[in-house]
C-alpha cells in the first residue's frame, strides 16, 4: 500500500479508464457528416433532399457537382454521399423507367460505412412511404417491420461498453498489479525470505492474494458507483450477485497474476506476459466490443479459456437485464475452474522451487 504505483493502478487508473470508455468509446453515430449531390432540383428531388436533412442521423452538405465532394471524402471530412442524378424526376415520371439514387460510402471506415448505408436506406424508405401517401398509391409497404430493442431501448452503446469495460479494469488490477508486485518481491528476494519462515506455502499465497482482492473489490465499488451515478447506467440485477460474480472473476484473475509472477520472477517479463495473457485477451477476445460469433472458429475456441468472456456476459446481464439465473450460474463455473487451475500451478511451482 505504501507504494504510490499500487494506488495509481488500483484507484486512479480505473477511474481514468472508466471515463475514457464512458465518453471516448462510442459506437453511436448521431451526426454522420454526409454530402448530397443535387443534380436535379425538381420537386421530387426537393422532397427527397428534405427527408435526408430532416433525419437526426445526418449532417448534410448539399452541393450541385459531385466533384466538390471528392476532396472531403478522401480527407475523411464526410463519410459518404448521396447522388440524385439530373434525370431523376424525368425517369421517375416516365413509365417503364426507374430513377436511380446512388449512395456512396467511404469503405475505408467499414463499420461507419455500413451504418451510413442503413441510415440512408431508412431515410429513403421514409420518403417512399410519404410519396406513396401523397400519390394515393395504396398498399405500400406491404410488410411493416416493428423493431423492439429490449433492455436498451435507445440503443446507447455506452450501456454495454461501460459494463463490459469493468471487466477490463478488473483484469488490470487482478492480473497486472498482482503480477508486477509479486514479481518484484521475487526479484528482490523477499519472497524467498518469506518462504523460509515457518509459514506454509498455501498461507503465503492466501496472504499475498487477500490485500489485492480487497483492493480490487474497493475499486469495483468505485467503478460501479461512477457508472451508475455519473454515467446513468441502469443496474437491474442484485448487488449480492454482482459481488459473487466479481469474486469468482477475481479468483481467476488473481490466480493468473500469481502464476505469471511465480513463473517469471522478473518485473519486465511479468509485465509483458500480463499484458499479452491478461489485458489484451480481456480487451479483444471477451466479446465486450468485438462479437465472438463473428470470429473464426479457432479464435472462438480460445475465448472459452478467457475468464473475462464469462465476466463480461455476467456484467452486461446484471446491469441491463437483471438476474438471469441460468446464464449467471453457468458462467460462474468456468471462472472457478480456471481460477483453481492457476492457484494449483502457483502452489506446485512455489513448493518445487525450494
Amino acid at each position, binding site marked *: 500500500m505504501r507504494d504510490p504505483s499500487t494506488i495509481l493502478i488500483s484507484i486512479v487508473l480505473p477511474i481514468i479508464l472508466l471515463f475514457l470508455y464512458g465518453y471516448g468509446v462510442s459506437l453511436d453515430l448521431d451526426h454522420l457528416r454526409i454530402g448530397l449531390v443535387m443534380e436535379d432540383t425538381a420537386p421530387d428531388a426537393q422532397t427527397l433532399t428534405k427527408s435526408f436533412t430532416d433525419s437526426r442521423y445526418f449532417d448534410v452538405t448539399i452541393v450541385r457537382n459531385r466533384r466538390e465532394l471528392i476532396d472531403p*471524402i478522401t480527407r475523411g471530412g464526410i463519410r459518404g454521399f448521396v447522388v440524385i442524378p439530373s434525370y431523376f424526376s424525368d425517369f421517375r415520371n416516365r413509365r417503364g423507367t426507374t430513377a436511380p439514387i446512388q449512395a456512396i460510402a467511404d469503405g475505408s471506415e467499414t463499420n461507419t460505412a455500413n451504418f451510413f448505408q442503413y441510415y440512408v*436506406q431508412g431515410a429513403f424508405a421514409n420518403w417512399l412511404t410519404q410519396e406513396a401517401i401523397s400519390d394515393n398509391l395504396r398498399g405500400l409497404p406491404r410488410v411493416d417491420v416493428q423493431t*423492439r430493442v429490449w433492455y436498451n431501448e435507445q440503443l446507447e452503446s455506452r*450501456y454495454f461498453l461501460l459494463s463490459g469495460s469493468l471487466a477490463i479494469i478488473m483484469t488490470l488490477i487482478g492480473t497486472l498489479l498482482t503480477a508486477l508486485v509479486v514479481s518484484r518481491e521475487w526479484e528482490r528476494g523477499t519472497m524467498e525470505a518469506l518462504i523460509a519462515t515457518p509459514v506454509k506455502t498455501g498461507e503465503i499465497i492466501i496472504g499475498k492474494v487477500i490485500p489485492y482482492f480487497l483492493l480490487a473489490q474497493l475499486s469495483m465499488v468505485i467503478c460501479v458507483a461512477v457508472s451508475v451515478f455519473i454515467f446513468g447506467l441502469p443496474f437491474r440485477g442484485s448487488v449480492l450477485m454482482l459481488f459473487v460474480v466479481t469474486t469468482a472473476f477475481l479468483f481467476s484473475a488473481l490466480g493468473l497474476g500469481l502464476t505469471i509472477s511465480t513463473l517469471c520472477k522478473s518485473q519486465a517479463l511479468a509485465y509483458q506476459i500480463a*499484458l499479452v495473457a491478461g489485458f489484451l485477451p480481456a480487451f479483444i477476445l471477451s466479446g465486450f466490443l468485438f462479437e465472438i460469433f463473428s470470429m473464426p472458429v479457432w479464435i472462438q475456441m480460445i475465448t472459452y479459456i478467457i475468464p473475462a468472456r464469462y465476466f463480461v456476459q455476467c456484467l452486461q446481464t446484471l446491469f441491463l437485464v437483471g438476474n438471469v439465473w441460468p446464464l449467471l450460474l453457468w458462467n460462474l463455473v468456468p471462472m472457478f475452474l480456471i481460477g483453481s487451475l492457476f492457484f494449483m500451478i502457483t502452489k506446485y511451482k512455489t513448493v518445487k522451487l525450494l
Partner: protein
Amino acid sequence: MIRRILALIWKEILAVMRDPKSRMSILLPPVIQLLIFTKAMTLDVKNVPIGILNRDNGEQAFELVQRFRGSPFFNRIVHLTSVEEIASFIDNQKGVMVVSIDEQFSRNLNSNRPAVVQLILDGRKSNTAQIVSGYSSTIIQRFNMDFAVKAGIRQQNAVLVPRFWYNPNVLFTWYNIPSLVCTLTMLACLVVTTQSVSRERELGTFDQLLVSPLVIPEILIGKTIPGILVGMLEGSLLLGLGILIFQVPFTGSLLLFFLSQFVFVCAISGIGLFISSLCSTQQQAMLGTFIFIMPSVLLSGFATPIENMPSWLQPITYLIPLRYMLVNTKGIFLKAMPAHIVLNNVWPMAIIAVFTLTVSAIFFRRRFQ
C-alpha cells in the same frame, strides 16, 4: 560528434539485439498480433445466431422464413415454438434477435392489408443489434418488392443503389490491417525507447553516460534513433505482411507512406523519451507507457470513430500522433491519398515530435545538474 553519436546508437542496437528475449519481444509479438488481431478485432457481423417464431402456417410466412434461412448472414437459426420462449432465448443470449411472425401474416398479405413482422433485439449488443436489424429490413424490403411485383401492384419507380468506394466488398480486414500497422509500430517504438532509458537508470549506467564526453543532446539523439529504426523496421515488416499475406491493396505512394511513418515514429520516440525522463524505475516507465497507450489507442479513432465522441473531447484527440497516422495509413493504403492531404496530417506530428524532444531535453538537463 557524429562518431560519438554513432557509437551510442551502435551500443543501443547491440543492447536490444544481443539479448535473445528482447530480440524476440521486438520482432515476434507484432507479427503474431497482426495475425490474430486482424481476425479477432472485427466489428463485422456474420454467422449471427437468431431465433424465428413463425406462428403462421401460410405460404407468405414460409416464404419470408426461407429468405432468412437463405441469407449467408444468419447461418444458425433456431425455430421457437411459443411466445414464452422469446424471453429466455434473448435473456440467455442464445441469439441476438428473434423474428416474430404472427398468425395473421399470410392472411393479411393475401387480403391486401399490411402485415406485421416483429424484430426483437438484444440491447446488450447495440452495435450488432443495429446491423442485424438493418440487414433484416433489407431482406423484408426485398420480400415486399417481389410480393408487389407478383401481385401486380404498381411500384414507386425509384431505387437506391448502394456503393462502397475504396473497399467495394466492405472487407473489415482492409480497415484493420492499415490501422494495426501503425498501432503496432507505435507500441514497438514506444517500448524500445522508454525501456532503454529506464533500464539504464535502474542499473546506474545512465550516470556513466552522463559523465562520458557525450553532451545531453547527443545522448538524446543516440537514445531516439534506435527507437526510430525499430519503428521503421517494424512498420515496413507489417506493411509487407499486410500487402503480401492479407492482400490489402496499396494504392498510394510508398514514398509518402515512409515520410509520414518517419515523422510519426519521431513523435512517438519523443513521447517515449518524455515519459522516461519523468520516471526513475522500470516499473514506473512501464506504467507510464501503459497510461499513454490506453487513451491514445481508444481516442485515436482506431476502436471507434472520433466523430462519435462528445464535442468537448474531440479537441484532445489532436494531441495524439496516432490519430493523424491512422488517417494517413488508411488513406495511402486504400484511397491513393494525394500529397497535400497527407502533408496536412504530417505537420501536426512534426510539431509533437519537436515539442516532446525539446521538453525531454530540458527535463534531463535539469535532473542532472
